[in-house]
Structure formats: structure tokens, C-alpha cells
């Protein structure tokens, strides 16, 4: 212990104060000023004004749409993410690597491209857009398109959070449950999922944070109809471009607070998940 402090003291004598000054400068300018500015701009005309802007019908509708879309995509992607992680972690089969790469794919796709691909399928010039329009099914420039874009963007998060832990835990527990006569659902519910519960929660929270904040993909497919297809991020853009700075930053404060609370909770559970990984190694 004492040797560690000694070495770190020697390691750095000269540049140490410089590095510390640099650290506080970087953190101050890049990480502290922006969130302070969001809140300051929102409260520019007082707390009451900020709240009033959030009570605007279009603002309320944007909040409602964001909450609905987030919940829907989290539920859907969690169910399929768990099954995908289970499949890849517990079995060996041909093209397993290809499937993993496909699940990871949306992470490296630009948000705008993630929106564009749905227009290619369901837009007015898309493959099936006009045919579906004729039978009264509207996907592009309507909530279903927003949901599809959000699903694409948040597709990998649950699976990729679960995978490393599930692979590390192997399948001894599952094999034991199987030998005792458990069915697939029993194994999944009573053996596998309890083993990865913190990682699962972490993946779900990451999906939630990304789903509510998604801008580029949703912007392309939504059509920006205030009160109908504007989510919170899109409404922030509309307000900001309309020079309604206080309203834009009030909405931004609310959205950022929601996202940061989600991410904060996630870091908390992530620490538990990390401990679970360590325990998995020991076992």
C-alpha cells in the first residue's frame, strides 16, 4: 500500500499539477458548462414560465408520444434481446458470429440512415408505402414509423449487455435445471434471468435512455407534425428554430433530466452487474 502511493508520487512530480489543472479545465468547459447552461436558459424568465411552457398542448402531446414510444420499444426489444442473448450465449450453431454481427449492426449506423431505411420500405416512394397507404395503413410520418426507427436504434442494447455475462456464466446451471426436468421457460425465468438480473436491468435502462432521446432517426420518419408525430427531441428542435428559447430549454431540461436519471440508475446497477461478473468468474 505504501509502495503504491510512493510510486504514484514519483511517477508524476513535475507534470502532476499541470495534469490536474488540465483535468479541471476539461471537465469545467466540456462537461459542467453545458448542463448548467441548459438549466439557466430554461429558468431565464423564472421557474413559473418554464413550467407554463411545458403545459402547452403540443408540449404535452410530445411528452406523451415520447413516453409511449419509449415504453413500447423497451418492452419489445427486451423480450427479443433476452431470447437473442440466450441463443448466442448458450448454444453453438453455424453462422453464430454472423448473427452476433447483425445484432450489433445498428450501433454503427448513422441515426439519419436508421430513419431513411424505413422510408425506403414504407415512405411514399418506398417499396410498400403506397400499397399500405391505399388500405389505410400509415407507417411513415406516423407513430408506427417512429416506433420502428426507435426499435432499430435501440435494437442491440439488451442483447449486448447480457451476452458477455451469460457467456461467462456458461450453462452449467441450465444443464442442471434441464436434468432436473425443467422446461425452457422455467429455465429462462428461474435460472438464467435471476443470474443476469442486474445486467438485464442495465440493458433495459440503456434502451430506455436511448429510446427517449433518439433524434436523427425519428426526425427522418416522423414528418414533424406538432401535436401528432413530434416526440420531445423533435419538439425541442421546432421550439428552438422558432426562437422560443425558454420553451426549448425547458423541454430540454425535462428530457435531459429523464435521460440522466435513467443513466444514473444504470451506473448504479452496472456496479452490481460488474460484481456479478466477478462472482461468475469465481464460481
Amino acid at each position: 500500500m505504501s509502495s503504491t502511493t510512493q510510486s504514484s508520487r514519483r511517477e508524476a512530480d513535475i507534470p502532476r499539477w499541470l495534469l490536474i489543472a488540465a483535468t479541471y479545465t476539461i471537465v469545467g468547459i466540456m462537461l459542467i458548462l453545458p448542463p448548467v447552461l441548459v438549466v439557466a436558459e430554461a429558468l431565464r424568465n423564472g421557474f413559473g414560465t418554464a413550467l407554463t411552457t411545458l403545459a402547452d398542448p403540443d408540449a404535452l402531446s410530445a411528452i406523451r408520444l415520447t413516453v409511449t414510444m419509449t415504453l413500447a420499444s423497451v418492452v419489445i426489444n427486451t423480450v427479443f434481446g433476452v431470447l437473442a442473448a440466450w441463443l448466442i450465449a448458450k448454444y453453438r450453431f453455424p453462422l453464430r458470429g454472423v448473427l452476433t454481427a447483425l445484432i450489433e449492426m445498428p450501433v454503427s449506423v448513422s441515426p439519419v440512415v436508421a430513419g431513411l431505411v424505413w422510408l425506403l420500405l414504407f415512405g411514399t416512394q418506398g417499396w410498400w408505402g403506397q400499397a399500405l397507404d391505399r388500405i389505410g395503413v400509415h407507417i411513415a410520418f406516423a407513430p408506427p414509423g417512429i416506433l420502428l426507427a426507435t426499435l432499430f436504434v435501440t435494437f442491440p442494447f439488451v442483447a449486448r449487455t447480457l451476452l458477455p455475462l451469460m457467456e461467462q456464466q456458461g450453462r452449467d446451471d441450465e444443464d442442471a435445471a434441464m436434468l432436473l426436468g425443467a422446461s425452457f421457460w422455467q429455465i429462462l425465468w428461474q435460472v438464467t434471468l435471476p443470474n443476469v438480473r442486474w445486467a438485464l436491468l442495465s440493458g433495459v435502462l440503456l434502451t430506455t435512455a436511448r429510446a427517449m432521446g433518439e433524434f436523427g432517426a425519428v426526425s427522418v420518419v416522423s414528418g414533424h407534425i406538432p401535436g401528432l408525430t413530434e416526440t420531445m427531441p423533435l419538439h425541442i428542435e421546432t421550439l428552438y428554430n422558432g426562437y422560443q428559447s425558454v420553451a426549448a430549454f425547458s423541454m430540454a431540461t425535462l428530457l435531459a433530466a429523464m435521460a440522466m436519471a435513467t443513466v444514473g440508475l444504470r451506473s448504479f446497477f452496472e456496479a452490481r452487474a460488474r460484481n456479478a461478473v466477478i462472482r461468475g468468474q469465481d464460481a
Partner: protein
Amino acid sequence: MTEVADVSFALPRGRRPADPLPGFRIALVATLFWTGLIVVLPLAALIMRPWQEGIGAMTAALQDSRMFAALRISFVSAFIAALIDVPLGVILAWALVRARLPGRRIIDALIDLPFAIPTAVTGITLATLYGPQGWLGAPLAHLGISIAYTATGIVVALMFVGLPFIVRSVEPVLRDLPPEFEEAAGLLGARPWQVVTRVVLPALLPATVTGFGLAFARGIGEYGSVIFIAGNQPFHSEIAPLLIVVRLQEFDYPGATSIAFILLVASSLCLMGIAWLRRRVARGMVAGAAP
């Protein structure tokens, strides 16, 4: 127990007995269905669509100089931003792991801020902060430096977005680097800066390359945090994702799809290149350490 027989079709015959763990078929069907619907189908549309209007439309799209300007701006800005982020990120990682700074926990939480804040919020915030009347923009304007509504603004936004990738890639490696290494180097007569440049930084190189690659790849496609602060002037400060949106608003689907296609291929190539570079660097490290 039907699953026992079902698994065998997917397993290499003879090498391994059929997998008795139930659930393979249902998980496989669900995963293939969902991946097919949400990932493969739309990406197939993206890959096939540019050729649908014929080769002529594709070559016409490829002669668009505005598109190449936008792609160049996206790639160069992402590269510069990730490059500037490298020293900043390494310093922050060092501060988190080695320096016992007051407020270390707060800094640790703040690092993830760019991940947590939705891109649209980042966009309007940075545009206001660096705008002509902004907290940082006004003093900088006095010095004759304008950041908002120029190509520099793009780099500033991408720096913010990319910073956590570097820190979070380097930090665990630095944490696992035994202080004994540095101690030994010091005992062997290395000066402090030699310890840093010869012992610490080489050990961090693979992680730094990874972080750089992640920040770069993210920067190429970034949209929400950039468009508010960039001037969005064609040929000067218009990024490729924005040009896709512009083309879509002009109902120019082939044009939009061509840019998206090139963006997708280019960023996939970049990611593969960085993965390759990282493997080489990691191998070089091992080879260098072996004797």
C-alpha cells in the same frame, strides 16, 4: 423432448452430440424473425435501392460534388475531433485512476454525460454556449474566433460526443496496469516523463486506438448534436447525414440513398480498419513484451 432432435440439424454432424438444452428452436426462430424484420430487411432495402432506378441514377448520384464535400466534411471533422479527444480523454482517465483528486466521483459521473444527454439537447446547448452571445462564444468572438455556425462548430460538437469513448476505453486498462511497472522503470533510472512515454502510454495504446475508433465512427454519422451548431452551408459546413435529410426533403430518394449507402460502407470499412489496427497494435505489444 422434441427439441433434442431439432437442435441436431444446426450442429456440425458427428463432431458434437445433439444439444439437449431445450429452447433452441424458439429462441432461434424469435431471434431470426426479429433481426430479419428490424435489421436485415431495412438494410437490404438500403443496399438494393440505389440500383433500382438503374445504373444511370447511381452514376448521376456519384457525380454530385456536394455529396463528396459533405462526406469529406463528416470524415475530416470526425477524425480531427477524435484526435483532439485522445489527449483529453487520456488525461481524464489518468485523473480518475491515478490522481486522488477532490471530486473524483463527480468527475466519474460527469464523464458519461455526453452519452446520457439526448443529442438534440446537446445540439441546442452547444449552439447557445458557443454562439455569438454565448458564455464561451462571446469572449471567443472578442478574440476573433467564431465557432458556432462554422466548420469548427462541427468539431466542437463531435469532441463533446466522442470524449467518453476515449476515457471509458483507456480507464480500465490504466486501472489494471500494475503500479509496479512504473516503479520498476523508476528504479531502473527512468525519468518521470520517460516512465510515462515508454511504459504507461505504450500500454494504453491499444485501448486508445479502440476509443479513437469508437469516437471516430460515432462522429461520422452524428446528426443531432451537430446540425444546430454547424452553419450547414453546402460545401463548407454541411455534414453528410444532413445532406441525406436535405435530399429527402427534395424527394430525391436515389440521392439520399446513395449518400446513406456510401456512409454505411465507409463507416463499416473504418470500423474494420480500426479493429485490424487494434489487433496489430495489441500483437506488437505482446511481441515487444515477450523477450
